[in-house]
């Protein structure tokens, strides 16, 4: 990769990051080894990997919740493990939505819960309120729920409230750890569409953690695949899904339409390459069909 220093000033850089849980005990676990990544501004990154591959551990490094046991992480050119680095500011710039974020709701009303983040940042009452309502809108929480108790909401609604709680800090980088876990297909699509919209409108970097290829293939412009604590591959969805045979070996799979287009090509349909999303498959097939008629 050819990045200039000016570009790196805008990025999150991981330099030989290592992490070991419970070093020196029987529970010792080398969760991350030698991670080198440059996460650019405005990217929509899908972070995929089998359960236990280290995805959650990796994203918790990005806002300083855990410090690497080896290597360095730089945000805008500053080492985030340095003693004089402002961790609190980092956490407002790098918003992390945990897996099952609805489990962290605690306030009496939805609005109060979402305001928790901006309040902790020490913002004025007006600024807090403005950010709270903007975030609720952005996350797609309907207005009649604003004064409800978060514990009364449905699963999908709770999750949006929790996402709004992080959005309200207006982070530059938004990380979502398996935001669709435990949702029904409709709830899943709604949340993913919301996230895509948040990325499109907010000029933010979005990192979407998932173990479903289908989910990330549709939205991400770059995929990082983790396996056993290492980066297995890193590239555009097309580049990554080209290696679907290797992906299968580590317990992942390309989206089903990739398999379908591969089968079509083998059956003699002249597609230029495999499709990764349904829309792309449609376009490729239509182009082929029109070409064939001419």
């Amino acid at each position, binding site marked *: 990769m050819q990045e200039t220093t000016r570009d790196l000033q805008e990025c999150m850089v991981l330099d030989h990051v290592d992490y070991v849980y419970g070093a*020196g*005990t*029987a*529970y010792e676990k080398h969760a991350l080894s030698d991670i080198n990544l440059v996460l650019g501004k405005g990217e929509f990154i899908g972070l995929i990997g089998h359960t236990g591959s280290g995805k959650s551990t990796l994203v*918790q490094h990005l*806002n300083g*919740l855990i410090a690497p046991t080896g290597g360095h992480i730089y945000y805008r050119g500053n080492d985030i493990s340095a003693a004089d680095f402002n961790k*609190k500011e980092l*956490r*407002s710039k790098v*918003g*992390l939505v*945990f897996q099952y*974020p609805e*489990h*962290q*709701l*605690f306030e009496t009303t939805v609005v109060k819960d979402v305001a*928790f*983040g901006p309040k*902790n*940042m020490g913002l004025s009452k007006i600024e807090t309120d403005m950010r709270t309502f903007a975030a609720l809108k952005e996350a797609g929480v309907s207005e009649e729920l604003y004064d409800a108790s978060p*514990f009364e909401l449905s699963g999908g609604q709770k999750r949006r409230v929790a996402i709004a*709680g*992080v959005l309200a*800090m207006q982070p530059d980088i938004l990380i979502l750890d398996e935001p669709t876990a435990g949702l029904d297909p409709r709830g899943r699509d709604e949340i993913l569409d919301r996230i895509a919209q948040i990325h499109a409108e907010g000029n933010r970097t979005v990192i979407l953690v998932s173990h479903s290829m289908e989910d990330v293939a549709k939205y991400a412009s770059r995929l990082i695949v983790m396996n056993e604590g290492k980066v297995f591959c890193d590239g555009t969805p097309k580049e990554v899904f080209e290696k679907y045979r290797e992906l299968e070996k580590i317990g992942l799979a390309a989206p089903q339409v990739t398999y379908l287009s591969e089968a079509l090509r083998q059956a003699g349909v002249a597609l230029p390459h495999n499709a990764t999303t349904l829309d792309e498959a449609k376009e490729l097939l239509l182009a082929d069909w029109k070409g064939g008629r001419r």
Partner: protein
Amino acid sequence: MIRDITIGQYYPVDSPIHRLDPRVKLAGTMLFLISLFVFSGYFGYVIATVFVGAVIKISKVPFRYIVRGLKPVLILLLFTLLFNVFLTREGTELFSWGIIHIYDQGLITAGLMAVRLVLLVLGTSLMTFTTTPNQLTDGLEKGLRGLKKIKVPVHEIAMMMSIALRFIPILIEETDKIMKAQQARGADFESGKLIQRAKALVPLLVPLVVSAFRRANDLALAMEARCYHGGDGRTKMKPLKYKGRDAVAYLILFGYLGLVIGSGFLPL
């Protein structure tokens, strides 16, 4: 960090102590606790300390790991120390300032008390380090089954204990997760005055209690779905059976007890 709490947790290694029958370990822990209160001379302390040291060595649980588990009792230890130092009025006075008087006897009592407390915690935590909650339940149930005759709900007590033990690491993990999630939203658990700190705990405690109830509910459902109906008529896949090594362990235990009691008659 919160994850450092190791009390009541199992430490998975293979050692002669781990392989012992849980009843031996339960009885051993009881005997050890009793022994801590019967000896009087200094010699008793030496024997008890050597005994615990030997068991730790054989159990292969890293000493560092055990010491970390002692942290939560540190406060209790400190209180005991201070009370003994300041409130004992025996022996010769070493220091006095206003209402504070410190006597040499106070220092000695405080020191010995601290050793006893540490040994007590070490002894009990060694049992949980080397015995899984399941084994502990089995051992307790079988060891106390005689009490069933006088209507003591032995099975239920054992089950409650094992569930409680099993839930400690789960709740610790949950606490860690919720803490991190709130820290990601700028919560600060580490600074501020006492009142601020207490207030800062609300975002942690509310979700924690909610989740404890959710888990309890799930567990109850799961037990019901598997037709759990208490201990009557329940059989075991691996019934407990004493082996040769258990007899050896009992012998060593009684030898230890004899030594401790005998040490009381020494002129020291």
